[in-house]
């Protein structure tokens, strides 16, 4: 390694993305259900507890689309286009009974997350385990934003901050993929000119440091904005789905916030899909 590279690395490492606070706003949420009048209203109340439509925030107009309003995905998308919402609140297994087996979000929700540009707040199905819905009805205290690359993702953190109430806890979680890391380390182990042990330590330290530094800047901004929110960090290597499930359970999370779109990717981001399917007992905000 030349000294030019050494100093360039020092300066690149010092160049850190800073969290930019741009308050996420939900002015016109749309509640999308396949339920009829009373059940649909009660689901609207549940989603209102998350979005603030219950009165805690300024939500101008919460619209509700009921089961009788649409019969196909196309009709559903047309209705959404007409409403122009900035958030859609729905639940897994919309217009489907797939929620009974927990292996899918259901075709409506899967299409929604990819074709509609606004975030989708996905609850467990209202007819699923009563305790899950009861917990959701208690409101949102602990929010977890999770990703495998947190540094620079201000949109994710801003969205998670919006759903974290005063005196609530925001868990910022960056879980680097252990399998990918090990794959690269195996390749490095076979290159004689690279000190394998030093490379393992340095690469791991650097990828974890980037996320930690970003969380530090999030904390600084939250303090500066006087937001009464506690930020807790989890930055580690892990086996994604299993570890995210473990972390969500251990932190008693009320809402998981995650990205679902990758640039140029037509289907849902691989990890997001796995998580959305697996974490079927927690409300999810899919960005």
């Amino acid at each position, binding site marked *: 390694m030349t*000294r*030019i590279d050494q*100093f*360039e690395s*020092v*300066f*690149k*490492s*010092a*160049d*850190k*993305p*800073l969290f930019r606070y741009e308050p996420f706003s939900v002015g016109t949420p749309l509640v999308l259900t396949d339920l009829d009048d009373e059940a649909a209203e009660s689901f609207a109340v549940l989603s209102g507890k998350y979005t603030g439509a219950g009165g805690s925030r300024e939500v101008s107009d919460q619209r509700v689309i009921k089961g009788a309003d649409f019969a196909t995905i196309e009709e559903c998308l047309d209705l959404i286009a007409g409403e122009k919402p900035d958030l859609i609140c729905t639940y897994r297994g919309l217009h489907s009974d797939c929620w009974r087996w927990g292996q899918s979000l259901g075709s409506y929700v899967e299409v929604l997350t990819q074709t509609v540009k606004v975030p989708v707040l996905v609850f467990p199905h209202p007819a699923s385990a009563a305790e899950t819905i009861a917990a959701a009805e208690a409101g949102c205290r602990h929010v977890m934003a999770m990703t495998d690359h947190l540094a620079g993702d201000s949109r994710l953190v801003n969205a998670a901050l919006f759903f974290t109430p005063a005196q609530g806890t925001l868990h910022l979680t960056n879980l680097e993929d252990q399998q990918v890391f090990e794959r690269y380390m195996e390749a490095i182990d076979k290159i004689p000119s690279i000190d394998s042990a030093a490379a393992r330590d340095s690469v791991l330290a650097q990828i974890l440091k980037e996320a930690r*530094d970003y969380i530090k800047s999030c904390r600084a901004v939250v303090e500066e904005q006087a937001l009464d929110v506690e930020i807790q960090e989890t930055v580690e290597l892990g086996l994604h789905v299993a570890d995210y499930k473990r972390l969500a359970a251990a932190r008693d999370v009320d809402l998981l916030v995650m990205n679902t779109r990758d640039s140029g990717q037509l289907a849902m981001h691989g990890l997001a899909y796995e998580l959305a399917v697996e974490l079927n007992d927690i409300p999810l905000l899919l960005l």
Partner: protein
Amino acid sequence: MSFYLGWISEAHPAVPAWVTLLFVSILTAMILCLAFEEKLHAKKSVIAGLFAILCLLLGAVFGLLPFGPISVGGHEINLPVYIPAIDWGVIAIILGSSLFVDVTSRTGLFTWIAIRLTKASGGDPLKLLVFYGLMTVVFSAVLNNVTAMIIVGSLSGVSLKKLQQEDKLLGFLLVEGLLTNIGGLLTLVSSVPNIIVGNAAGIAFIDFFLKSSAYVLVATIVTIALGSRLFGIHRLSSDEEREQARELVAGFDENDGIESRFFFWFGAMMTGLFILTIASTSVLPYIRDLGMGFVALSFAGIMLVRYKAVADKFYEAIDWDLLGFFAALFVVINVMEHALVLQLIGTGLSTIIDAPSDIAAAGLLAVSAIFSSVTDNIPLAAMLAKILQAREHVPEQLWWSVIFGANLGGNLTPIGSASTLVAVTIIHKYKIKLSFAGFIRKALPYALVHIALAIIYVLLFF
């Protein structure tokens, strides 16, 4: 030439003229090889080392070398003939100061300064050019010009990319490369030609600084102003642009490279103390006898205590090629001295040196600059220092002509100095096209201004 050879043969009948000519051709071949080291894919130390072996062998064959014991402090000791040929004082200064700078850079001090200045500029291109320019000069003076170019050049690449001003990178790197050779004139230890010529001329550190600083100041201002004009580096025009740039540079964390606060402040204190001690070496009792090499090595040793368990990593990072090159070069020059080559060149140069003083000073400065632009300025400085040392009553003007010429010649071509070569390496790293001729075309206005200013300065103030 035949007149000079005849004169030398008469004065030194032991060395036949054809032998002197043979060594002249060897010296010319070495200088050419050093000029084309990139083409030869050979390191300087290997080139100079092979020529040193050849010179020693031929020197022994022709009976030119003074074999036998040498006297050190009244004691006769046996040393191989090539050992006393090397100027160990110079080697000690270079080894000690490069080790000291390398360890001190681990404290995060230099990167801290560099990032603080970047943030202070608010990301404004013109302010950045001024700050980076000044930083290049100061780092070149305090550290060495290669390290200065590496630090400031790599930061320029990273920060201009972040500011989406990559189109200005060529201008920044070129101006910084040229300023390393201006900063290299500021102190006695800022560049190797200064150390060699300054030691030979007996110029003290403070004296050197006082006499060169006015020139460095003027040349720096002129270079930055010219750089801003020729490369179109101006201030940001709107408040929105300024705000955006400020936000972008705010992401730099100057504390990122600092492993330990204590070591950071210790490094800062030691750097200050190092400069102070080097500056006052000639007046400090005991220290003046031990010399600047001792000071540099001692400071490096103290700094290494922090990394005592991994000190070998720093030894690995020492530029052994440069040190090997110096050692071999001193041997070659020593043999050349015995073969009367230096005397021949000195006689040849006497046309310039013995001219009226102003013409001599201007001529020597211009000749030194031209020669050091096409080959390494270190052999040139070493050779001219030896030639001047051999003469009686050398005016101060001439020593300074060699110093200015040897340093500033590096700005004429990309191979003229190690730091401009580093600048070109960074330029190519960022995939900016710049040929050898392209560099000369862009650098020529600056180099001519530098040399013209230096001639005026030497004529007016010495």
